[in-house]
């Protein structure tokens, strides 16, 4: 047994924590700077960045930048649009992708292995390589709505929702998770005469809490942070989400106070949500790294 004097051990521990804290500051300071700056008039904000006051709520502190941001752009509309598009897409995605995962793992049907392989192959297609042809496509798609048959999906909610409901990664995550559930359970239920719908609702879904959380978090992050796609398909203010709304703030002569207020407004709720559920967030990212 190695004998380490307590002094030595304390010192080493202190060094370890010092390194950890120093790195933590690199990740935290820009975000603290953002929030603190949002509370200061633009001029003071720029002066403060010369010293540590940049990270402290000192000087002329107010919520004026937030009011000004609401004046400059229809912020409430952007937030509403983002919440709506993100929420609806996450819900439909969970339903559609879990059903597909269920069919691929528990049900035996013709073509399932080929189709699963094709779905997995789509994982190597970066979204950026299909964005431009998809733009042309959605500009000409039909839609049957309250005012009859119309053509073109640009400037709508559906154009931001429907293309992102199903994706190879989410289906794959459900498939991986369902494979670890006891298959005998499902078979026994079938023998007992349970319908597929009952098995899905009453046996599999109640066992799927962790994977539903994972899939929801991943989809939420992708959808809430969407930028390129809504930038292209929403020319009308009324349908724009928060990330595209940012454009109103980085045009000519940037008012940094207002910019920081808007950034804080759209980021702090997500950060709070993350800190509250950080174990689930980190577990969901980690699960994308499990090789099948």
């Amino acid at each position, binding site marked *: 047994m190695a004998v380490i004097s307590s002094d030595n051990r304390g010192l080493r521990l202190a060094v370890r924590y010092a390194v950890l804290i120093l790195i933590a500051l690199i990740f935290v300071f820009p975000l603290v700077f953002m929030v603190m700056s949002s509370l200061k008039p633009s001029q003071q904000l720029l002066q403060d960045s010369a010293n540590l006051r940049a990270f402290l709520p000192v000087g002329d502190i107010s919520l004026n930048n937030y009011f000004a941001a609401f004046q400059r752009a229809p912020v409430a509309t952007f937030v509403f649009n983002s919440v709506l598009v993100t929420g609806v897409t996450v819900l439909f995605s969970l339903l559609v992708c879990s059903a597909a995962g269920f069919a691929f793992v528990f049900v035996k049907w013709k073509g399932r292995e080929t189709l699963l392989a094709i779905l997995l192959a789509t994982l190597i297609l970066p979204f950026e390589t299909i964005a431009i042809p998809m733009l*042309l496509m959605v500009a000409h798609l039909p839609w049957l709505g309250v005012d009859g048959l119309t053509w073109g999906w640009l400037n709508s909610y559906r154009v931001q929702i429907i293309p992102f409901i199903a994706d190879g990664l989410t289906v794959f995550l459900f498939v991986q998770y369902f494979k670890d559930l006891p298959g005998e359970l499902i078979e026994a239920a079938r023998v007992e005469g349970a319908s597929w719908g009952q098995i899905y609702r009453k046996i599999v879904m109640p066992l799927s809490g962790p994977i539903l959380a994972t899939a929801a978090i991943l989809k939420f992050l992708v959808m809430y942070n969407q930028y390129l796609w809504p*930038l292209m398909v929403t020319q009308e203010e009324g349908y724009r989400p928060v990330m595209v709304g940012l454009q109103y703030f980085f045009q000519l002569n940037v008012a940094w106070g207002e910019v920081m207020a808007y950034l804080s407004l759209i980021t702090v709720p997500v950060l709070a949500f993350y800190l509250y559920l950080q174990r689930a967030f980190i577990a969901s990212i980690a699960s994308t790294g499990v090789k099948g």
Partner: protein
Amino acid sequence: MASKFTVSNRTGWLMAGPAILLIAGFVILPFFLAIGLSFSNQRLVSPNPTEFVGLSNYRQLLDLATLRLEPLRDEAGQVVMADGGPQYPAVRSLTRNNPDRPDLAGMREWFSFSTGGESRTVVLARDVVFMKAIVNTFIFVIVVAPVQAGLALCLALLINQRLRGINIFRAIYFMPVVVSIVVVSLLWRLIYDGQSGLLNNLLDAISFGMIPPVNWLGNPSTALGAIMAMSIWQAVGFHMVIWLSGLQTISPTLYEAAAIEGASKWQVFRYVTWPGLRNTAVLVLIVITMQAFGLFAQIDVMTNGGPLDSTQTIVFQAIERGYGKQDISGGSAISVILFVIVLSISLTQRWLTREKP
């Protein structure tokens, strides 16, 4: 377990159908559309019918040529000198209305180098900006992939120790990952500001005024580097978590055995940890490479491709053409080029890191 009770073609298609249809319609179909459109002259809105134009979009993007320039000579046959070097004819005079080289019409100088003696070789490109975009994207990937993967591994090893409160640090390092890259880009525009930016003030303070302020995003030699640093800051936590889950699959008994054998810290890493991370390493590298090739939002928010095209990227060019100029066919051709690059790189990475027998 092929029980007859679990066979049902109808249920299978019914439950998997919606996902299959949506992925076929919004992922697979656009991909084949991209290939098809790249051989056409399709625009987003156009009164003219679409025509097949063969490889002309690709030629427009990728066409290269070289031109050898002999120095100008005066009547006596002496080389004309100016600014301490020989004078060369203007490239323009050779590409415009040159009956000997009609193929050079419309091409511009990309770069030139001297080829021994007095002559210079000029490399011409039909689309110089796109060439710069390809080079910048490759520089970005070649720097970001190894640096980000390496830093993420260091963080993962740091977090993987038994210490009180270590989960708090893990949560903090991961924090920027949940913040949108668009938000991060706009925030860092102020941090990188040439006058009152935090970074300049910080460098000034720690160097006691020795480092003069730099306009990080306004200077062609620093803009791309600044974007790289910020991108790594934002995403490194993501790959730290993937490395961590790889680290946790390594059996503790291996570490115990190494401790009994009296292995040094480096030996433990080299012979226990690293071999156990093999699959994770392949995955991390492929994921970072794919993400890095998609570089767009940072450019759109921070530099718009400038200054002097020093931050043009492939995706930025695809969007500028396909959406900005509504030239769907040109944008599609760039998308296909990007896909071919990403596919060949991930196949190469897989091949290089394959399990050797």
